[in-house]
């Protein structure tokens, strides 16, 4: 090892789990069980193409089009598939509607089931033990932690996702948004408002 280069004598060694993942990739590729190009495609899809902007489009459309909203609440899976949002972890999607009387909130106490085609990969807090345990036990306190306070008369319902059934919250349309286009409305719909831990933005 040359003395003048002892700070960077070799490539930076990745952490142990990264090496174990590389080992799995090599083994599975050599056995023909996975295709490395397919892995890159999957990562690109979830990093760049699928995310909460998809769900936001669905919500905005439901705010504007009563027939769409009705169909969405009756059976969401084919309705969102028509918009091109289907596939992995989106086989059975149920949309639950917020009203002045009822606020919906979604959790997965089992692991981290989530409607990928509409919201992408869940954020860290959704996967944390703290959220998974507390969302069911004390939803109002969790909402307060997210900065959401609801009127006393509004009850909170928590939906527990499973590998078979994933939920999307249809938040209430903010006041004073009458003249906005579907696109402008979609920009108000946050990820958290579709999980039920937030509310849509108010137009400025």
């Amino acid at each position, binding site marked *: 090892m040359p003395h003048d280069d002892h700070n960077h004598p070799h490539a930076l*060694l990745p952490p142990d789990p990264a090496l174990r993942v590389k080992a799995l990739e090599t083994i599975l590729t050599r056995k023909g069980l996975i295709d490395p190009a397919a892995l890159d495609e999957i990562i690109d899809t979830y990093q760049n193409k699928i995310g909460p902007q998809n769900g936001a489009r669905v919500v905005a459309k439901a705010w504007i089009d009563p027939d769409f909203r009705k169909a969405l609440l009756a059976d969401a899976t084919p309705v969102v598939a028509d918009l091109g949002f289907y596939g992995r972890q989106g086989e059975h999607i149920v949309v639950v509607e917020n009203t002045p009387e009822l606020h919906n909130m979604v959790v997965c106490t089992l*692991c981290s089931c989530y409607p990928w085609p509409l919201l992408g*990969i869940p954020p860290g807090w959704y996967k944390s033990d703290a959220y998974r345990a507390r969302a069911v036990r004390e939803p109002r306190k969790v909402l307060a932690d997210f900065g959401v306070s609801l009127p006393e008369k509004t009850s909170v319902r928590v939906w527990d996702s499973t590998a078979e059934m994933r939920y999307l919250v249809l938040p209430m349309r903010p006041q004073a948004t009458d003249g906005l286009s579907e696109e402008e409305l979609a920009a108000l719909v946050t990820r958290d408002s579709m999980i039920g831990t937030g509310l849509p933005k108010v137009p400025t």
Partner: protein
Amino acid sequence: MSDCATYSAPEPVFAEPWHAQVFAVTVALNEAGRFDWPDWADRFSQTLKRHGLDRDLDGGDDYFHAWLETLELLLNDLGAAIPAEVIQYRNAWEEAYLTTPHGQPVHLTASK
């Protein structure tokens, strides 16, 4: 404008490259029909429960540690990758990193 930037540039989907890799390997295997997703969710939830017994999991790095452990156990059960193989290739990759000059791409030698 700042609202717009916040909206279109959220936190990274995967905090570490290996989180993305282990996720992609799992999804690819599922799509190839090697296992179905409810079975995965069931196994993964058991690992999370086991890991969460003595501490609260934060949903970040420890989530993907649990994910990787679940995948290793599943691949062993399927006979697709047994622990001895995984250790052998893991060590081969470690050696490749330690013997590749800094800045050059790291490859396993064909014989490994």
